[in-house]
């Protein structure tokens, strides 16, 4: 299975009070479960079921995903730049595995 991979697109710096758009594209098959693979076995459900984003420790975004979400899901949201800090993105996969990425936003 292909490795998890995230592309996070956002400005590296912003002025205080500015609205910044954050766009996140991840590589994940989002197996909805119930399909049969080439060897006749039933594929169990395995999707990323939650994306949570914190900004300088504060939660700013949460998205609960279900089986209707496509493979390699793309998410876009906005937040207000308040202080220089790390945005931490955490995806939670079925089965409990988590993937974390961080990106720094410098506020001038």
């Amino acid at each position, binding site marked *: 299975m*292909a490795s998890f*991979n995230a592309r996070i697109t956002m400005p590296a710096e912003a002025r205080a009070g500015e609205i910044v758009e954050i766009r996140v594209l991840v590589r994940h098959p989002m197996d909805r479960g119930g399909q049969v693979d080439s060897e006749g076995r039933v594929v169990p459900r395995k999707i990323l079921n939650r994306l949570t984003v914190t900004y300088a420790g504060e939660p700013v975004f949460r998205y609960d995903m279900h089986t209707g979400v*496509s493979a*390699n899901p*793309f998410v876009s949201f906005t937040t207000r730049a308040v202080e220089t800090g790390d945005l931490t993105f955490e995806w939670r996969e079925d089965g409990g595995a988590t993937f974390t990425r961080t990106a720094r936003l410098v506020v001038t």
Partner: protein
Amino acid sequence: MIPTALILRSRASGVSKDAPERTGPSFETRSAIAPQDEGYGSGKAFWLATALISLLLTAATAEEIKPGSAFLSASMQRQQEDEARNPGWLWVEQGEELFSRREGAAPTCISCHTDPKQSLRGAAARHPQVDAASGKLINLEGRIEQCRVDRQKQPAFGYESQELLGLTAYVASLSKGVPLTVSAEGAAKPYYETGKAFYDRRQGQLNLACTQCHDGLVGQKLRGDTISYGIGTGYPAYRLEWNGLGSLHRRLRACSLGVRATQFDYGSDEYLALELYLAVRAKGLALEAPGLRR
């Protein structure tokens, strides 16, 4: 009506001589229907109508070939060009990582191809080409595998493996925007002829030749999708139908299945020759890999 036809005709004659002739077999059958129809009155009117129709058809077939993305919706066109939203770039990233990954004592790709953004720019636009050493036609996937086996002494990734797709997408992305300059001359000539013959030959249970749809019915609908000129400038491409990145040969296999013809293997001689023909057809068009397709 007549002035329009004349304008189109003059545009058609402006196409350079080396452009391959694209006359689909379907057109003869269309103009052959009318003679029995007495309702046309005088023979003169009939011949005028036939001449007009054939003029229009010639103009339509000789029109400039447009890339596959021209047949996408505006929003998908924007998505293809947006590196943040086109999922094909996930594979490009994987390829970029593999490009400098060290495996055992083998040299990495980047240790020979230093500064790939410069040194490999345009490489994808020159493939498929005839390999000087073996004299065989080789495409970008084949070239990467050859490098891996012969120079890096590593086991081949295998056609359509995620690793090879990633590397191909990465190398192809370095040529994004570069016009195709694949040659059909010299050693490539017999392969080009084979590819052209494949493209023009009726095949499968539906008895269809590539040209009948991809020249004759361009712009019309096939189920929910719009038929485009059969060219592969966007490949490897992310297809929504696949939920992933796939090679041109995967796309060709889907077309073969669609007309219920023999599906050839990935990297087979038949598809390589066809890939060459398609690349020559698309001469001058910019490479747009990783493309986004329905």
